[in-house]
């Protein structure tokens, strides 16, 4: 249940890889050349923006041709020595079981600095003599560091898939997951991903957590480009308003959800305002606005909303000098995303806290605060203790995995 959809829906064959027809054709043509003898260029260099399917394509290719994928990640080829070791495998044409090998050097961008220069040089040497096909991936093949390496590789560019292609994938996932999604909702997710498939699939999973339906309203705050432009305008009208009336009016003019607008202002204030005193004054205005919002909640007196508005617009505008330190783009409010993602997490944490509380005579809150942190370390450090204590606390597998995965 809890595996990321990016894994669950990873293409198994090259054909299933979304978009990039041209790139896939080059890959197939190149691999066929290997049938007789190693071609002139013994490595493929797949490059393109993140989330366009480079690594996935290499994996799918190996799968299609029933080859064994030998993968080395960035930390493994930092030194020339490590590469040489790796090259030992590469030089053998087949595995013990007669399977051919496909060698993957993933995310070459990860190699940085002079210390790793040796690594890159060694990879070039391996490519010259290899008997197994090699695939390299990187975001930017034209990085000067790759200049020599590039000469020995067949370059293949991966482009961002079209919006319609992303939408089609999202639709397929929805139908597999039994999720009813409005076309407009998928439209927004695809649009927002700007060509990054991985992020589109992640967004879809985060947004649909615990739902059976996904409507336009559920995702509308993610905002299409148009809406984004609209909110950017409101934001700059508020932050840089010349007087309080303009600041107040900016909200009336825009058709945006007020809580959402507040989140945008709150997220962006520290990026726009660098002077510590001014930032502090602006944050205080937002805190006061929030105070009124809380009072509306507890009294149900919606008249108070005007004060909420006053402080988040006019209050922000007059509390700083508008001297920005150069143009800073507005950022998407990340808090909202993390809130929706972590709601499920917090529920899990509470369930664990309840089990612990029963055993250790404490409240859920105390258990989360005083036992969970230590339990996490114990679980990560000691397998026997993990198993024994999970049994003692009666934690299910899901809970144990959750404790193991929280990063410290």
């Amino acid at each position, binding site marked *: 249940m809890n595996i990321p959809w990016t894994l669950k829906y990873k293409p198994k064959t090259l054909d299933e890889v979304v978009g990039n027809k041209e790139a896939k054709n080059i890959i197939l043509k190149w691999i066929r050349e290997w049938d007789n003898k190693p071609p002139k260029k013994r490595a493929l260099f797949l490059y393109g923006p993140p989330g366009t399917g480079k690594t996935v394509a290499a994996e799918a290719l190996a799968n299609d041709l029933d080859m064994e994928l030998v993968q080395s990640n960035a930390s493994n080829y930092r030194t020339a020595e490590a590469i040489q070791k790796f090259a030992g495998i590469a030089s053998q044409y087949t595995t013990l079981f007669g399977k051919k090998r496909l060698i993957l050097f993933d995310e070459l961008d990860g190699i940085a600095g002079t210390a790793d220069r040796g690594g890159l040089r060694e990879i070039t040497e391996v490519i010259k003599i290899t008997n197994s096909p090699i695939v390299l991936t990187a975001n930017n093949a034209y990085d000067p560091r790759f200049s020599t390496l590039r000469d020995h590789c067949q370059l293949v560019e991966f482009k961002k898939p079209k919006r319609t292609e992303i939408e089609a994938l999202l639709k397929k996932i929805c139908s597999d997951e039994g999720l009813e999604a409005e076309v407009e909702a998928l439209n927004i997710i695809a649009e927002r991903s700007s060509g990054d498939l991985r992020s589109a699939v992640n967004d879809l999973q985060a947004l649909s957590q615990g739902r059976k339906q996904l409507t336009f309203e559920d995702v509308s705050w993610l905002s299409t480009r148009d809406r984004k432009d609209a909110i950017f305008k409101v934001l700059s009208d508020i932050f840089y308003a010349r007087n309080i009336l303009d600041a107040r009016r900016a909200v009336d003019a825009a058709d945006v959800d007020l809580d959402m607008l507040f989140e945008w202002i709150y997220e962006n204030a520290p990026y726009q305002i660098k002077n510590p005193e001014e930032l502090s004054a602006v944050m205080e205005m937002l805190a006061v606005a929030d105070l009124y919002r809380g*009072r509306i909640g507890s009294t149900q007196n919606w008249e108070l909303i005007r004060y909420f508005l006053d402080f988040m617009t006019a209050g922000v505008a007059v509390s700083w000098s508008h001297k920005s330190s150069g143009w800073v783009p507005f950022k998407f409010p990340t808090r909202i995303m993390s809130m929706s993602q972590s709601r499920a997490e917090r529920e899990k944490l509470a369930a664990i806290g309840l089990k612990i509380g029963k055993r250790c005579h*404490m409240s859920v809150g*105390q258990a989360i605060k*005083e036992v969970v942190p*230590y339990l996490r*370390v114990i679980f990560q*450090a*000691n397998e026997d203790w993990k198993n024994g204590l999970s049994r003692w606390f009666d934690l299910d597998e899901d809970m144990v995995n959750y404790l193991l995965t929280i990063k*410290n």
Partner: protein
Amino acid sequence: MNVTFNKNLRLNSFLQHIIIETTSIRVLKLSYEMWTEKYRPNSLNDIVDQEEIVNRLKSFVKTKNVPHCIFAGPPGTGKTTAALCLAQDLYGPGYREYVMELNASDERGINVVRETVKTFARTRSIGEVSFKILILDEADNMTGDAQQALRRTMERYTETARFILIANYSGKIIEPIQSRCAPFRFTYLPREHAINWIKHIAENEKLIIEDDGLEAILEISGGDLRRATNILQTAASVGKPINEETVYSVVGRANPADVQGMLLTALNGNFVEARKKLRDMLLKYGLAGTDIIGQIHSETFKLNVPDKWKVKLANIIGEVDFRLLQGSNEEIQLSALLAKLVEAGAEIKRGQ
């Protein structure tokens, strides 16, 4: 059970064999448990500290009469343990039938407490003791209204139920309840007792603990035995000799609420990063805003900032605390406080 078995010697020895077998299996299985529970005393006689309190409680057991009580004191000083031991001494092995543990912060609303108490206290307990015991933990987290309702419940069921209210601060318990309860004030254990306690567990668990490791545990737990025990167990799970380094490394890994780190990040002018730390505490680790502000308050006084600013900040912290109680958003209020720290940091730097 043994009495019945004595009639048949062969059966008896056979059964005893089985009993020994099963208990050894049970021991094996139970060897994995939290040491806070494994080493929690089961009788007032086993409690080595809080002598005066224990003596008074023992006299309750002797007369088989217990008044309503308030156990007040800092965490990890044995309040819950004392309540449970009292119950076990009073009722014997079947004590669970006569004792109910409630948690004021879990059982939302006084209505839940009232209903639970009603059903629990309605039936008289059979046996020598004519009342049941209700342990209400974190009683100081109850609102004034809830406490008023609790007071009426206490009065109504005095015949059949006695309350032990557990709280960090007895001052947060309303006066009418206080006047109906026998107060017990728990204090931090003297250092030697804490040392003995840790050594006792270490010996039993066959741990190698070095002096500086013991010292580190005492330093971090500051008299809170539960915390000390948890730290010891965590350090032991790593499987190395327990010294200063292992202790600090496991505590560092365990402690997500790096409040001090967050405050320093803000003081150094990185608001965005400090806000991210705050967000992690609230969302990822599920800490309550009021807990975080409590820690901010105590950490602030340890910060290397001029006293003038400490007082200023204390005022702001107090205001934020109050706003949280009024139902404002935790992250937004607390990050306004972080922005103030950024401001303080900048002014201090200028002053130098």
